[in-house]
Each structure stands twice: as C-alpha cells, then as structure tokens.
C-alpha cells in the first residue's frame, strides 16, 4: 500500500468502508430520480428539441438564416465550436495529465469530467459540421477516393488538421472513458437484482472479472492512454488556434495563440467541471468524495490558467503596440473601443479579474462563490472567442466589407440547443453510469480516507510512546 503524509488532507471524508463506497456510488443508479432531476431533464430536452428545430431549419433553408454575412463570415458557429471544444479539454486534463502526475484527487472527478468532454465535443462537432454550409457533403473533408478526379483534401490547411485532431480526440476520449468504466459496470452488474438491468450492465461490463492479470493490464493501458492523451489534448487546441494563427488577419496572426488557447481551454473546462460537480455532489450527496479540498484544487487550477490567459491578453496588447504595425494596433484598439467594446470588457472582467478572487482562501473554499464564479468564467470564455472572431472580422483590411453582426433566432436557437443537448446527455449519464470511478477510489481509501488516516496517526503515536 502506498503511504501518504498524515498532514495531507484526506480525500475521502468520514469512516467509509469499501462496501459504503459501493453503496454511495450505486445509489443513483439503483434508486429513483427525484423531482429536480425530472424538472431539469424536461427543460434540457425541450431546449435540445428547440435546437434540433433550428438545426433542421438551417439545413432546409440554407446557412443564410444565420446572422453571418460577407464580412463576418465566421461568427457564432466558430465561437461556439471553440467554446465547446475548450470546455472538453478539462476532462482529458483531469484524467490524463493528473494521472501522469499521480494526483489522486482526480479520482473523484475524472469520470464526470470525461463524460463532460465527450458531450462537449459532440456539441462542438455540430457547429463545425454545419458551418460548412452543405453538411451533407462533409464526407469530402476526409481523404476518400472520389469521382471528381484526383481531388484530395488540402493537407496544408489547419482546417483539415482540425478534422483529424477533433476526430482523434473524440474517439480516443471515448475509448479512454469506456476502458475506465468497464470495472465499474462490472460492479453494477454484480449488484443488480432486476434481470433486465443485470443483462444490460452485463453487456456493458464486457464480462469484467477483476483478475490480477486483467488489473495489471488495465493499469498499463490507462497509463499508456494517458501518455497518448496528454500530447493529444495539447495538440487539439493548438490546432484549433492554428485556424486563426496561420491566417494573415491582424489580431489572429499571433505566435502566442497555441499556449493561450490551451490554457484558456483548461480554464473554461475546469469552470464547467466545477459547475457540474457542485450540482452532482449536492444532488447525490457525494460530499464525502468530492470534498472542499477537491474544489480548492480545481480553483487553484483556475487561478493558474486564468492568470496565463490574462498575461496572454496583455501580451497581445503589448506586442500590437511594440510591433509598430498599424493594422495590428488598430485591431486591438477596435476590440477594446470599437463597436463591440462591451464584449471585450465583459471578457476582461470575467476572465482576468474575477478568477483572481480565488487568491482568498475564504472564496476558493466557498461553494456558493465557486459556483457563481465558475459560471462567470464560462461566460467570459465564450466572450473571448466572440471577441477574437466577430470584432476582428467586422473591421478587416477593406473598409467596404465592414459590417456588423447580429445573431438571428436560429443562431441563438442552435447554441441554446447544444446547451440543452449537453445537459440532456449529462443527466442521462448521471442516472445510469457510476459517476465516480469507484474502483480507483477504493484503491486510495486506506491511504487517503479520513478515518484510516486518523487510525494510522494514533498507531504511529502509540509506537512512539512505548
């Protein structure tokens, strides 16, 4: 067993046994949903349906129903795409990067964070697939032999790199998530009493038994997948940033974009994990596993990444001034004081100023403050992508193309619809899947459980006394 310092705060509160961990995590699956779940689910499904309606309308009538126009040809579609894919990054960061760094607090949140990743990437995919204008031709993005002659996609284009990066990211995240779920589905199967649920979880668990060889391979696979996912997650948002950075548009053509986008992604993703986990721990009474310490750790990640994002904003301003390039200078002047000044200052307030409040221990350990700030951060990060895209494109080189952008009800409908879809999937997940990786959690109970730590402390004390 791995020993852990006694002064380190416990990750599992109270005197829990292995059986109690099983019971606590399986309760939402075996029990019935309460009325709050049904209320949330109804609202989510309705918004999801509204989104599907707007989506169908876009496909039926054409992309002209969006507010995008000749000047501002990328607008809410790409804003929402980058926002969603950024949110997804925290899941992989928690499950892969923190695994490599052997951070045990990840175990209480990695399952839900990965679920969030998968659902967020699905939402992101809707926007990229739609923004091509003719989504039924999206298969042409892949290098398939075709009847148009030797016409292949352009492998020099970052937009095509995105196709490969996002598809790899999505499928690898799904596999990573599922491999971790197999032992937990095994546990649900062995507990199930009703024949139908026994059958379903039996199928899902792939016949898991928990033999020593299987566990040994399981750990190796998790480690190697984490090693592969870590550079993958950095590559995905770097490539998303190349969509902008490899262009010659002032305000986009910047070398700091990859690290700036990646830290922004982690920043918004952790905020979303906090929003979701604060609800899940309350609704499912998982306070013993997702402790205040976990929330504090996540808030620390938010301060770090939020500060990197803040430095990136200031670097952009400094470089615009220092470079002496007037187009670059105008781009930033326009962002801060142009027609969309309010979006710029909303972004600055939400992303640079508000996370600094987490320097106060009182605030970063307060549930209410964390919940509110996590939503503020997500609003801010949405505005960041909006500020990068719309104000830039509404004032490009040729003043004749200068144009304002106004979202139509379809733009808003699809965006709100993806939020509905995200929560519909998350709520279904939370009712049917073990929301905490219980097998992993059991493995740290002896070292990091509160009662177990106290016991170890008394024993150590006794042995000193005699």
């Amino acid at each position: 067993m791995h020993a852990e310092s006694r002064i380190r705060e416990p990750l599992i509160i109270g005197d829990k046994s292995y059986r109690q961990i099983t019971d606590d995590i399986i309760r939402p699956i075996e029990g019935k949903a309460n009325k709050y779940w049904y209320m949330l689910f109804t609202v989510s499904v309705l918004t999801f349906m509204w989104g599907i309606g707007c989506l169908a309308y876009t496909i039926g009538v054409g992309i002209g129903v969006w507010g995008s126009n000749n000047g501002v040809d990328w607008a809410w579609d790409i804003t929402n795409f980058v926002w969603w894919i950024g949110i997804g990054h925290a899941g992989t960061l928690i499950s892969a990067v923190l695994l490599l760094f052997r951070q045990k607090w990840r175990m209480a949140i990695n399952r839900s964070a990965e679920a969030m990743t998968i659902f967020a990437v699905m939402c992101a995919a809707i926007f990229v697939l739609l923004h091509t204008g003719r989504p039924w031709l999206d298969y042409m993005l892949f290098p398939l032999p075709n009847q148009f002659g030797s016409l292949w996609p352009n492998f020099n284009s970052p937009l095509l790199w995105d196709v490969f990066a996002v598809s790899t990211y999505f499928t690898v995240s799904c596999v990573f998530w599922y491999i971790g779920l197999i032992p937990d589905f095994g546990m649900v199967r062995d507990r199930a009493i009703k024949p139908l649920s026994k059958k379903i979880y039996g199928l899902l668990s792939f016949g898991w038994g928990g033999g020593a060889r299987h566990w040994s391979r399981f750990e190796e696979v998790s480690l190697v997948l984490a090693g592969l996912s870590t550079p993958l997650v950095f590559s995905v948002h770097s490539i998303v940033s190349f969509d902008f950075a490899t262009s010659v548009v002032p305000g986009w053509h910047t070398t700091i974009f990859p690290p700036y986008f990646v830290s922004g992604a982690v920043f918004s993703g952790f905020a979303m994990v906090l929003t979701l986990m604060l609800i899940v721990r309350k609704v499912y009474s998982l306070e013993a596993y997702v402790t205040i310490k976990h929330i504090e750790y996540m808030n620390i990640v938010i301060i770090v990444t939020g500060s990197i994002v803040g430095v990136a904003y200031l670097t952009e301003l400094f470089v615009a001034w220092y470079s002496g390039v007037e187009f670059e200078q105008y781009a930033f002047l326009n962002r801060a004081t142009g027609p969309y000044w309010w979006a710029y200052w909303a972004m600055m307030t939400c992303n640079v100023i508000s996370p600094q409040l987490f320097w106060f221990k009182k605030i970063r350990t307060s549930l209410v403050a964390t919940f509110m700030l996590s939503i503020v951060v997500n609003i801010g990060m949405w505005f960041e992508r909006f500020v990068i895209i719309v104000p830039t494109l509404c004032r490009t080189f040729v003043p004749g193309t200068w144009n304002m952008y106004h979202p139509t009800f379809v733009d808003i409908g699809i965006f709100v619809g993806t939020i509905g879809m995200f929560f519909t999937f998350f709520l279904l997940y939370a009712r049917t899947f073990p929301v905490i990786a219980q097998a992993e959690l059991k493995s740290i109970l002896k070292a990091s459980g509160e009662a177990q730590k106290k016991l170890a402390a008394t024993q150590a004390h006794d042995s000193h006394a005699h």
Partner: protein
Amino acid sequence: MLEGCKKLRAQGIRIKDVFTPFPIHGIDPIIGVPRTRLAICAFLYGLTGTALATWMMWYMMVTDWPTDIGGKPSFEYFMAVPAFIPITFESAVFCAAHGLALTYLLRCWLVPGAKAKNPDPRTTDDKFMIYLELNDEQSVKAGEILTATGASEVNHKGTITEKEH
C-alpha cells in the same frame, strides 16, 4: 492478503488467480504474473500510424496531384513536411490508442456478451479472493494457511479452493 499469497507460494502452491475490487499494487511478482507487453504493442501501433499518415500525404499531395498552395509547392515530400506533421501526429495517436484498446480488450476477452469472469460477484464490491486449483492434500494445507492469515471464508468446490477476506 499479500501475506496469504506469499505463504501459499512458499508452500509451493500455485495461485491460479486473484480477484479484487481494485488493483493491488505489488501482487504481480508474488503470484507470478509477468509484466504486460501492451505498452510495446502501443508503440508498434503508433509507428504504424505514423507510417500510414506519411504514406497517405506523400501519395495524395506529392505523387498523385502535386499542388502549389500559396506559393508553397509540394513537389517533394520534404518541401511541405512541416504542414504534414500535425496529421502525422494525430494519426500516430489514433492508431496507438485504438490498437492498444482493442488488443487489451481481446487479450482479456472483454467483449460484449462475455460471461462474468469473477467466480463470486462480491469481488467487485468489497471482497478479495484467492483462486486455487489443487489436489486434496494441498487443499487441506492451503485451507490451514489461509485461515491462519485471516481469511473470512474458505470454500472447497470439488478440486477448487477459494478464499476471501
């Protein structure tokens, strides 16, 4: 349980398998489980992915239909190689991760519809089981060792001995 395994091995009793709710670190050398070679597989799949992507982009962009995009021609592979690196990387990760996952699932025979491999359903909850295949004489000896090291149950099923605690 590690203690029980060690004593059984010292008596020359072969441990067929151990079923636990979570991975027990350090048990593999005691019960004689060799280190898995899955990581080597992943590396080979990754190399395959790299080679596939390199060949694909060389064929499509250099051989089959060379194009000059933005004054940056790709008449030779090395001329455009920086632009090919992201997809080569993604392809390597794609093949390594999926190849690894498939190999793992097939090697352990974890497939939809497979029968549960644990002899007792409690081993995914909070029970730890040592699974032995023995003759009668060994069986009695094993039972004694296991009871002495604190086993909560010792079940004999024909020639099978099980221990849980």
